[in-house]
Every structure is written in C-alpha cells, then in structure tokens.
C-alpha cells in the first residue's frame, strides 16, 4: 500500500525548514517569527527536538513561536472535532478554543507523549465537553453500546476488483462519496479512521489521543475498514478506468 512518507501538515513548502533563533525577549508584534539566526531544525508533525526547543522558548517569552508549534496539528485537531461535533462551524470554533487552551497550558506538557497526541487529547476533551453541554449524548454510553454490539463486518463479496486510481479524485463526486461513507460510520470507528488512515498517526498515538487501548484501535480500524469496503466497493466500480478498447487505435 502506498502510504505517504511525509505526514500532512509537516512538509508544505512554507514549513519545510524552520530556523530557531537564540532566546530573546517577548515578541510583542503580531508578526510571525522569521527564519533567522542559528540552528536549522526540520519542522514536522512529530519532531520532538523542534517541539522541545519551541516550547522552551515560548515559555521563556517568545509567544509568537506558538504559531509554528501548533501549525502541524491543525488538520488533525479540526477533523477530530468535526468527527465529534458533526458541524463545521462548531468544529472550527472548538479548534480555536483547543489551540488557546494548549497555549495557556503549555507549561503542563511534560513530554511523556508526543506533542500532537497531547494536543489531540485536549481537542477531544473540548469536543466531548461541548457534546455534554449540548446534552446530545454521552460518549461512554455510546462506547459501551458500540463495543458490545458484535455487528456484521462481512465485506462486500466481489469476484474481481479494478483499482480506482487516485486521479479519479479529480471528479468531485468521488470525494463526496468517500466523505459521505466516513461520515456514516459510527463515531468510535470514524475517529479511528480519521486519525489512523487520514492523519496517518500510528496505533500508539491514536490510542493515546482517543484515550483507548491499542487493541481497541486495531479492532475499530478493522471494523471501520470493513464497513467502508462494504459501503464503497459497489459504488466505486463506476470510477475505475474503463478497460482499453484494443480496436480503437485502428478506428
């Protein structure tokens, strides 16, 4: 399977290399920090060296560096919240609140987990807090319900499969179909697919972010993929390239 080797959020041209300058006094200007003086550090979604240095300097007064620290986490935070809240405007507001809470509580980050994992656990708490406030439902009862249900995770039975290439995503309806299928998953499966398959987090990080065991991550991911395959396989057939018509060249 072709997995991207570079996590999204960490390899854009605007963030490939960030240079960390020497500690200086608190930055009062709203301007973003500019690449500057000393040691260059690769800034990726999981660069502990960058994160440690960045956090140390933010806590020492360089608050503007927080923009760089939080940027690689933005996507995962937003989509986790969207998965929980099912509302784009509220997910965006919750993502902003999450970023502010992360900033205010940065001194509490001990480095026991990856920074992104810690950020996602704050995002998850933010999302669950909003859900409870709205009295929509309680996650624990939903979890128990979904885990207890054996469910039917039999895949769609096919006799053959013609691959749908990524280029087919140029057709908007394919993206819509995939989003609709993921949106239709029960929440506990949707969250895991989102972090494992879409944000490409590993099992351990996903488990820590969602507050579940690594075993539960694997079970939920398996079930989620089975449900997606069953839902999507029959619909995706129409997006596979047509077989070459051998006589067409001579027509």
């Amino acid at each position: 399977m072709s997995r991207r080797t570079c996590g999204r959020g960490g390899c854009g041209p605007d963030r490939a290399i960030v240079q960390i300058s020497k500690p200086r006094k608190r930055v009062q200007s709203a301007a973003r920090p500019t690449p500057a003086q000393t040691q260059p550090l690769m800034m990726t979604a999981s660069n502990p060296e960058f994160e440690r240095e960045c956090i140390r300097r933010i806590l020492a007064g360089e608050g503007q560096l927080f923009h760089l620290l939080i940027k690689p986490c933005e996507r995962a935070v937003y989509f986790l919240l969207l998965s929980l809240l099912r509302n784009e405007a509220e997910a965006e507001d919750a993502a902003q609140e999450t970023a502010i809470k992360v900033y205010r509580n940065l001194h509490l980050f001990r480095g026991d987990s990856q920074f992104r994992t810690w950020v996602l656990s704050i995002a998850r708490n933010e999302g669950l807090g909003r859900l409870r406030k709205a009295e929509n439902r309680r996650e624990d009862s939903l979890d128990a319900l979904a885990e207890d249900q054996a469910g039917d995770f039999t895949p769609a039975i096919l006799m053959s499969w013609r691959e749908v290439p990524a280029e087919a995503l140029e057709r908007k309806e394919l993206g819509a179909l995939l989003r609709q299928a993921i949106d239709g998953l029960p929440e506990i499966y949707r969250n895991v697919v989102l972090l494992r398959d879409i944000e490409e987090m590993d099992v351990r990080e996903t488990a820590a972010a969602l507050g579940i065991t690594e075993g539960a991550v694997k079970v939920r991911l398996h079930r989620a993929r089975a449900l997606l395959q069953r839902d999507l396989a029959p619909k995706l057939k129409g997006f596979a390239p047509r077989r070459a018509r051998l006589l067409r060249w001579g027509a």
Partner: protein
Amino acid sequence: MRIDCKHVWEHISAYIDGEVDAGLRAEIDRHLETCEICSAVLDSTRNVVVLVADERVFELPAGFSERLHARLDEELETAGSS
C-alpha cells in the same frame, strides 16, 4: 492448516498494515493465490484505504488556518500585555 475466507477477512486490516506475523501472512498469501473473492476483497479494501487518505478528500475549510492564527494573535497579545 489451510485458512478459510472468513479467517482471511478477519485479518485483512492487519495484513494491509503489515501487522500479521510471518506464518499467518504466508497462509493468507497462499489463500489469496487461489481465492478470487478474497483477492478482490483485499484489493478493494486497500483501494478504499488509499483513496480516503488522499488529501483531496478532506480539506480544511477555506481560511481556516488564517482565522485560527488571527485568534491566536489576539490571545498572544492579551497574554503579552498582562
């Protein structure tokens, strides 16, 4: 021991992620050589996983990042002036 289709389906996700041990992988591979159904189930599942991971499927709303950082700037300014 020859494994059956249902057994293969139970391990498809782990197989895709390379998380099955060598013995089980060999059994599954042997099964796939002769089972068109399981091959199609595996290929379609893998295809779905690759497609949903494509960054064109899930995009941040336009202006999301700008709005987030603008709000952070407000917070940073407040923190800086207190």
